[in-house]
């Protein structure tokens, strides 16, 4: 079955995308990512450690030739910072991909969608492949599409909350509203959450805390891999309609 996800000409082998934050160490990061089967990993842009210059680098463990590196603008609370981090990320990396975050509030980490829209527009004009982390609002998704986003990344629930897909109906409407790929970003707590996102028809799911924060991150990474595949297959297969009463599976004919 040819069921590849393609964004702006870039082919993604996996519909599970994973973050690289919050792991115990780089070794665990590497093992969990391998177990997840993901070929896209998100990273953050931060100052080089000048004091401890011998400290190891994430990219010593995550080979950029093997994985697509998707830098984020996490921690940016205004348009200017998001632009600055995006441009630095492009210079440090090898692609135009950016997971754009303009955060509005420390407690919820919900996006500042007004800033997000402005930053998306500017970066898209500069040739970035902009993947904006947004809320689950179909109107905003459409605005982001019009502003030049390459995909939309609605949250399932607040970052790191593990609350799952809190508003599946909005995600469904987003899927009908935009022509772009829809990637659920944030909120996935366990395998069934990832499956639900994929069953709704989402193109991919991005998970960090759901894997890194599990008791056994490597086992959870594998669970998420199967969950995303199962959800995608179920979506393609077409589920039966929900109805209130039973329909017998076994025939009446031949009964005594």
């Amino acid at each position: 079955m040819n069921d590849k996800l393609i964004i702006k000409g870039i082919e993604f082998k996996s519909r599970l995308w994973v973050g690289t934050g919050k792991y115990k160490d780089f070794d665990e990061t590497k093992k969990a990512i391998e177990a997840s089967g993901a070929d896209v990993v998100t990273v953050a842009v931060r100052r080089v450690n000048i004091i401890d210059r011998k400290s190891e680098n994430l990219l010593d463990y995550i080979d950029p030739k093997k994985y697509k590196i998707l830098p984020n603008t996490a921690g940016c609370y205004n348009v200017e910072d998001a632009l600055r981090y995006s441009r630095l990320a492009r210079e440090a990396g090898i692609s135009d991909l950016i997971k754009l975050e303009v955060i509005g509030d420390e407690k919820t980490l919900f996006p500042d969608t007004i800033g997000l829209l402005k930053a998306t527009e500017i970066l898209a004009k500069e040739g970035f492949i902009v993947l904006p982390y947004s809320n689950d609002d179909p109107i905003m998704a459409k605005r982001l599409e019009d502003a030049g986003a390459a995909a939309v990344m609605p949250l399932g629930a607040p970052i790191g909350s593990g609350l799952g897909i809190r508003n599946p109906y909005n995600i469904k409407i987003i899927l009908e509203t935009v022509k772009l790929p829809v990637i659920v970003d944030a909120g996935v707590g366990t395998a069934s959450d990832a499956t639900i996102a994929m069953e709704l028809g989402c193109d991919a799911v991005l998970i960090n805390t759901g894997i890194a924060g599990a008791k056994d991150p490597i086992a959870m990474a594998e669970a998420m891999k199967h969950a995303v595949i199962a959800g995608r297959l179920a979506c393609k297969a077409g589920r039966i309609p929900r109805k209130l009463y039973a329909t017998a599976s076994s025939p009446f004919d031949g009964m005594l």
Partner: protein
Amino acid sequence: MGWLTVSFSPLQIRVELQGYGFLFFMKLTLNGEIFDTSKAETIRDLLDELGIESVRVAVEVNLTIVKKADYMAFKLKDGDNVEIVNFVGGG
């Protein structure tokens, strides 16, 4: 022209001992910390002094990104605000 020349320019303090080369002293703000150098005339020199491979970093001087191709040619000056960033784990 004496055997010892001390010059002050907006770029740096430079002490030249005729026949023996020169020394210079510069104070940079590097990743938010004061950093004294007598080796780094250019960004390339600074990265070498720090033992940082240029392939995985981005460098910004006074809020302007310097392209990798320009590291060798870009001369640092006293008081420059230099940021060197790389990728770390994130979601």
